C-alpha cells in the first residue's frame, strides 16, 4: 500500500493523530491460531501486502493443531490443501521450508503456511488433516529428503527407490551425479 508517498489532506485535516496502518493480511487468522496455541506463529508476511499471499510461519510442533483448527473453525474453513511443497535455503539455520497452500471455499480465500526445519529434522505429517497430502509429502521426501513423521507410507514417488540422493536440494548439480548416464551406442563404422 503506497501510503508514505505524500500526506493525504483528508486525514490531516482534523489535526488529530494519523489513521492507524491497515492490519496486515491474515491478522485474524494469526489471532485465531494464537488463541488456541500461543506462540505458534513465528512470522507473518505477505508479498506486497496482497491478501492472497498472506503467509504464516508456524512452529513445527504446533503445525497439526493449527492445521486442524484452520480446517474446522467456521471463520477459516480451509478445507482444500492446494499444494504442499518444500524449498531449500542452505546457509540458513533452518534450511528446509515446508510450504502449505490452503484454500477456503466458504470465504474464497487463500493462505500459505510455512514450517522451517533443520537438516535432518522431521516435519509432522498432515495426512490426518487432509488426505491429499499423502502423495505431496511423498514427493517432498523424494526430492528434498524431508521426512514426515506419521506419514502412513513414506517412500519415493517420482524417482526410482534406489536413486540415493535428493535432487532438488541446492547442493545437487543440475546434470546429476551419474546415477543414470546415457551412453550412445557405438555404431559400426564404414568398413568394419
Amino acid at each position, binding site marked *: 500500500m503506497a501510503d508514505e508517498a505524500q500526506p493525504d489532506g483528508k486525514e490531516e485535516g482534523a489535526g488529530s493523530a494519523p489513521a492507524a496502518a491497515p492490519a496486515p493480511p491474515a491478522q485474524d487468522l494469526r489471532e485465531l491460531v494464537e488463541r488456541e496455541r500461543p506462540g505458534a506463529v513465528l512470522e507473518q508476511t505477505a508479498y506486497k501486502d496482497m491478501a492472497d499471499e498472506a503467509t504464516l510461519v508456524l512452529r513445527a510442533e504446533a503445525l497439526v493443531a493449527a492445521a486442524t483448527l484452520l480446517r474446522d473453525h467456521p471463520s477459516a474453513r480451509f478445507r482444500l490443501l492446494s499444494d504442499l511443497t518444500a*524449498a531449500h535455503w542452505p546457509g540458513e539455520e533452518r534450511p528446509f521450508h515446508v*510450504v502449505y497452500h490452503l484454500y477456503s471455499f466458504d470465504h474464497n480465500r487463500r493462505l500459505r503456511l510455512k514450517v522451517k526445519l533443520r537438516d535432518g529434522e522431521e516435519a509432522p505429517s498432515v495426512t490426518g488433516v*487432509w*488426505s*491429499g497430502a499423502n502423495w505431496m509429502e511423498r514427493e517432498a521426501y523424494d526430492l528434498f529428503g524431508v521426512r514426515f513423521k506419521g506419514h502412513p507410507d513414506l*517412500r519415493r514417488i517420482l*524417482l526410482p527407490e534406489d536413486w540415493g540422493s535428493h535432487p532438488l536440494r541446492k547442493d545437487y548439480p543440475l546434470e546429476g551425479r551419474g546415477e543414470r548416464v546415457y551412453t550412445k551406442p557405438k555404431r559400426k563404422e564404414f568398413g568394419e
Partner: protein
Amino acid sequence: MFEVESSTRIERSSVLPGTEELIINMGPQHPSTHGVLRVILRLDGETVTDCDCDIGYLHRGTEKIGENITYTMFIPYTDRLDYIAAPSSNLAWVTAVEKLFGWEIPMRAHYIRTMVAEFSRISSHLLWLATHALDIGAMTVFLWCFREREMVLDLFEQAFGARLTVNAFRLGGLYQDVPQKFLDLSQEFVDLFPARIGDYETLLTDNRIWLQRTRGVGVISADDAIDLSLTGPIIRGSGVRWDIRRAQPYAAYPYLDFVVPVGENGDVYDRYLVRVEEMRQSNRIIQQCLAQLPKGPVSCKVPRTIKPPAGEVYHSIENPKGEFGFYLVSDGSETPYRVRIRPPSFVNLSGLKKLVMGGLVADVVAIIGSIDIVLGECDR
C-alpha cells in the same frame, strides 16, 4: 507367478485356501493409461482389492531446470508439462511471473489469452472425450472429436506457428498480434462447434452401453474429493461448484459470462457431462471474446532483463485438468530460486485408489479416463 518389485507395498492378503489372488501390472505401456503410468492392481477374480500407482516415468526435472534458466526461457518448458493444453500451462506461468512484478497487461492481450486458453480447453476436452470413449469401446467418437481438434490445432498454427507446444504467451502480453485470419477462422469454428458437440452427445449421452459402463462407476462424494485435494471436473462432478475462473478470476474472465456446470452423483458419467458442458461454455466464452475484442497493444513495456523483486507468490488457474498453479520464489536475480508446479494430474491421480477399490478391472479403465491425466504434468 512373478515377483512384484519392491517399489510397491501391495502384498498378498490372506485368502481362503483354494482361491488365488492376482497382482498384475497395468502399464507402463498400455493403451488405456494415457501415458506412461503403471498401476499395480491386486485382483480377486475381477474385483480390485488393492491398487497402487507407480509414476515418475516422465519425470524430467523441470523444477530443477527452472532454477537455472531465466523466466522467459522457462515458457517452452511449461508447454511440455500439460502438452495437451499447452497454452493453459503457458498462461499459468506468465500470470504467476506478472504477479511478482505487478504489471498492467493490456486488455487486448487479456482477451486473446483468454480466447486461446479456452481453445486449449476445448482441445483438451476433445482429446479426453476421444480417448475416454475409445477406452470404453466407442471408436466413432474418437474420429469425430479429432476432426474438430484438427481445426483447433490449425488455429494454433495460424497464430503461434506450432500445433501442440505453442509457446504462446510472453511476459507482459503476447509476442505479436494474432493475424486477422485467425480471428475469422475462430469465428467459423465457434459457429459450427455447438452442433458437433450435439453429435457427440447423440452418440453417448443416452447410449445404453455408455450408461452401463459409466453410471455408478468411480463414485466419490464431495467431502472425500475435497479431502483428497481433487480439483477440476472431478470435484465439479461431485457437486462442488468451484471454478477458479469464477472464484479468483484472471485474464479477461471478470468480463465474460459463462456457467460452471456441476454434476450430482460424482460418478464417471457425471464427470463426462460436466466436461461436455464445459466445452459448450468454452465455445460461448470464445464467442464473447471475439465480439468484445478491444483494439490496442498486445504487450506492456517489459524491461530487457527480467529481474523480479525478491519474494514469493502462488498463482493458479483453471486448467482443463484442474487447479494448475505455480509457486514461485524469486531471490531478485534473473533466474527463479524455486519453481514449484502444482500439478492437477498428480493430485487427482492420488485419488485413484479410493475410486477403484471394490470395482471391476474394466472400471479401472473408465475411471482413469474420467480423471483425465496427462503424465507430462503429473511427473514433470
